[in-house]
């Protein structure tokens, strides 16, 4: 199988004497690396490196970060405990305990809503499945760290006010 624009057989040219002597070729290589060195020495700002904790790369709006639970206009959680998200979740990381809502038009609400962030694979199926737009992954938070495994299981209150970065 041949690739377009590439030869089937790689032929090597015989090195001439100057190239075999190696020293001129080293000098040429040194010139290349030296050029990079000098260029970077005087243009430290234009370096492609992102100074990570200080600067952060902007991700697109579709980036799936840490989850959050959305609220109605009156401030109550939109979640109706329909279990769609926990059913569809491939990692089985969402645990919902339903309760009866005092408002008869709403029927159910989630008494508890826990997500195990260590098990979550950030596939985004929960937001797709949610009929009420109650769970979203649009926080853009991707730094998730904690001291213990238990701390990674976040509850409803946390998910409702999910705007902190970094450690849990």
């Amino acid at each position, binding site marked *: 199988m041949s690739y377009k624009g590439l030869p089937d057989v790689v032929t090597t040219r015989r090195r001439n004497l100057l190239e075999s002597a190696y020293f001129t070729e080293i000098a040429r290589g040194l010139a290349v690396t030296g050029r990079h060195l000098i260029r970077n020495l005087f243009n430290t700002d234009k370096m*492609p490196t992102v100074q990570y904790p200080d600067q952060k790369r902007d991700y697109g709006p579709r980036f799936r970060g840490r989850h959050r639970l959305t609220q109605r206009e009156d401030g109550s959680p939109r979640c109706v405990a329909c279990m769609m998200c926990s059913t569809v979740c491939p990692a089985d990381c969402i645990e919902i305990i339903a309760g009866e809502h005092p408002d008869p038009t709403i029927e159910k609400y989630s008494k508890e809503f826990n997500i195990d962030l260590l098990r979550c694979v950030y596939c985004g199926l929960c937001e797709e499945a949610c009929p009420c737009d109650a769970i979203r992954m649009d926080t853009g938070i991707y730094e998730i760290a904690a001291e213990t495994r238990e701390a990674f299981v976040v509850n409803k209150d946390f998910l409702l006010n999910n705007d902190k970065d970094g450690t849990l």
Partner: protein
Amino acid sequence: MLAIVLEATAKIGFMFALIMGLVPVLIWAERKGSAFIQDRTGPNRAGVLGIRLAGLIHPIADVIKLLAKEDVVPAMRHKFLYALAPMLVMIVAMSTYAVIPFGDYIMIGGEKIELIVADLEVGMLFVLAIASLGTYGVALGGWASNSKYTFLGSLRATASMISYEITMGLAIMGLFLIFGTFRLTDIVAGQGDLIWGWLPKWGIIVQPLGFLLFIASVYAETNRTPFDMSERDSEIVAGYHTEYSSLKFALFFMAEYAHMVVAAALIAVLFFGGYQIPWLPRPVLEANAGAMLTGGLIAGGIVLGIIAWAFFRRARREKGWYNDAREREPGFLGSVCVVLALVNLGALGLQPWAISELGASLYATFAQIGAFVIKVAFFSWLFIWVRWTVPSFRYDQVMRLGWQIMLPAGLVNLLVTALWVFAVHQP
């Protein structure tokens, strides 16, 4: 007696400070230089109160880490040789400096003090002898660790060191013939002459092939790329020091850089005139000390001013980047530069143009020491530069190059030089 002891201590102290000062700087240069060569930024985090000096604090942090680390040792090691090997490597790396002249002479209290620790009749042979002992640290360390990787690494290192020692010796034989001595001070003094009145009689001019052979074999002796087969990560982990940790590893690591400095010093002394400044022999330096000192102070002040301006510009640009102590760094460094520039210009008030004879002599000495240090620093940097430029050779290629190409080339070089010296000296 006391004077002799003081003199020797001062010289040893200078050499020790030069090496031990250059080693962390070289480790820093290796990291930062490789980063810049590869379009990265390199180390820039460790700092004291926000003063990071472009990563120069990192070697200090490294040392603290290595001192505080647990010394993990393999259970089935050879206890005595395992402990001895890193010491041997370091001792060998440090003792070669005894015969390297770092300056001409200095006049103190009417006495002329040669700036070399031990001016041996057989100086260069001493260097070769000590270098040949350097193999033992590597070989024994790899064997005593009782691991396949370290053993392979030490075998490779031993093989390459044995092979290239011969070429190294042959490469400088031509130089001995031309200067007629093994004594390094005489070789350096001989390189102060001019050929045809304008070309400095440096080793590289009279022995170009010898220089190429010497620099290649020195790279092999120090196990640096492209001859780094004894510690090639992708094949044998870290080679002979795989099983070493903590301070023992630090000794190996520092010895590698100390070896680099000694190799650079040898290249400078043998082939680039040592402390000699081309076209400016000592009498000229002494005669024009006043003018040169004045010019140097003014130029230093101007350069420092420009650097300070660059720092202040940077301080303005970086405002609000970090919101911590790091933001003060460019401003602080700029202020330091301003102070240094003012000191430089203020020193003009001492009337350096009317310098005394003793002062002129001192100035010439320090100018020559400075030239030596600059040369050593450049060739040390060349080691790093080459490492991040060329890929390394395969084991059989190293052996082939050493035995089949460089050894015959060294013999031919020696023969031609001998014939030439014979023709010149015996008409």
